């Protein structure tokens, strides 16, 4: 798909700048330019497409849908899938949580949405396609959705409502079906400028992280020997996955910064499953989000929430290593 870009950058780095294609600097520079441009193109494309989907399925309508329909368990899968297609900033997690509870959506279903939302987002998808190809991306998205569904279901069965803060429990008792806020019908051409502006805005905010990530990745690419990590993290080491995940939980970054580094780690010998599990832990669980949630639930519930997700991520890491 990007052969033309590969050749163009080779022309620039090796012929115009004059670095040898055998040299470390030449290698690193080629990697940096090629990856940055490819990723930027993909980022814009995916964010734009997701923007269109979101314009037609705004979060208010998703909530109204989940609050109206009781679907014999399928609501967990739906909430998790909706979480994958709706982007939101982690500082929205509290209003979203309360808003869902207020709409009478069960706690487990709300959790399903909250788990998948940061895990599968448009930035992660674009970077995944660019770095690992379509097949691995689909596997990542699929397992993110399954993880959210299972996590939500398990948390829902645990009857954790008493562990919510008093205020949240009060909101829960007054829950009622919420109607979607009606924006009126607008044509595609009316929506387009807003979607494009949003896409540019998102690309602009993650740009720096992507470039730093690719920069570090490029340096590692040029200077760390192939197979370097294999001596430390191999598929045979049964503790590699849990250690990677537990290290990842307190780290907080977005997919944009972590993925370029993970790509190089995989190239240099870290098993893909272990790397994906690490990334899920970094992106999906963050301590700042945990402290924000303190306003709506007790520490005990936050610990149960984090514990369940950590456990599920570790399991999926092992599964990935088996499949990939």
């Amino acid at each position: 798909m990007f052969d033309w870009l590969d050749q163009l950058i080779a022309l620039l780095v090796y012929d115009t700048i004059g670095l040898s294609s055998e040299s470390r600097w030449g290698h690193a520079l080629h990697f940096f330019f090629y990856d940055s441009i490819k990723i930027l193109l993909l980022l814009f494309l995916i964010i734009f497409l997701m923007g269109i989907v979101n314009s037609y399925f705004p979060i208010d309508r998703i909530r109204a849908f989940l609050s109206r329909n009781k679907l014999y368990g399928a609501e967990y899968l739906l909430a998790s899938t909706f979480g994958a297609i709706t982007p939101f900033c982690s500082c929205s997690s509290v209003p979203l949580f309360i808003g869902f509870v207020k709409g009478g959506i069960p706690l487990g279903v709300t959790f399903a949405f909250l788990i998948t939302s940061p895990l599968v987002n448009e930035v992660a998808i674009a970077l995944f396609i660019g770095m690992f190809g379509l097949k691995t991306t689909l596997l990542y998205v699929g397992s993110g959705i399954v993880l959210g569904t299972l996590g939500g279901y398990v948390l829902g069965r645990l009857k954790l409502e008493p562990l919510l803060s008093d205020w949240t429990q009060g909101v829960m008792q007054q829950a009622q079906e919420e109607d979607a806020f009606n924006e009126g019908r607008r044509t595609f051409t009316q929506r387009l400028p807003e979607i494009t502006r949003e896409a540019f805005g998102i690309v602009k905010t993650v740009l720096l992280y992507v470039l730093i990530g690719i920069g570090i990745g490029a340096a590692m690419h040029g200077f760390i020997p192939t197979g370097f990590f294999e001596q430390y993290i191999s598929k045979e080491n049964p503790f590699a996955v849990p250690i990677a995940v537990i290290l990842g939980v307190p780290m907080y970054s977005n997919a944009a910064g972590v993925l370029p580094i993970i790509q190089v780690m995989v190239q240099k010998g870290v098993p893909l499953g272990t790397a994906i599990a690490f990334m899920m832990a970094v992106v999906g669980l963050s301590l700042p989000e945990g402290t924000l949630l303190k306003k709506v639930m007790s520490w005990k519930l936050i610990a149960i929430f984090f514990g369940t997700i950590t456990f599920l991520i570790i399991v999926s890491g092992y599964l990935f290593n088996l499949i990939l």
Partner: protein
Amino acid sequence: MKTIKVLGTGCAKCKSTIAAAEEAVRTTGADAQVIKVEDIQEMMKYNILTTPALVLDEVVMIKGRVPSIEEIAAMLR
């Protein structure tokens, strides 16, 4: 006098929304004050799901994104 409330838990996007609102008030010279609402219970009275949100005279105008200065200025006129 008009009242603009910016609802948000203090993240980067909320800060840029406040800055945009203040700038819009300054450029239009409108008689309006910008108030920052960081209390979640207060915020939920407006029935929003995503932050930042911008409320003009108790009506939610924007939610879940950072508006441009021109957009807010147009509301103030």
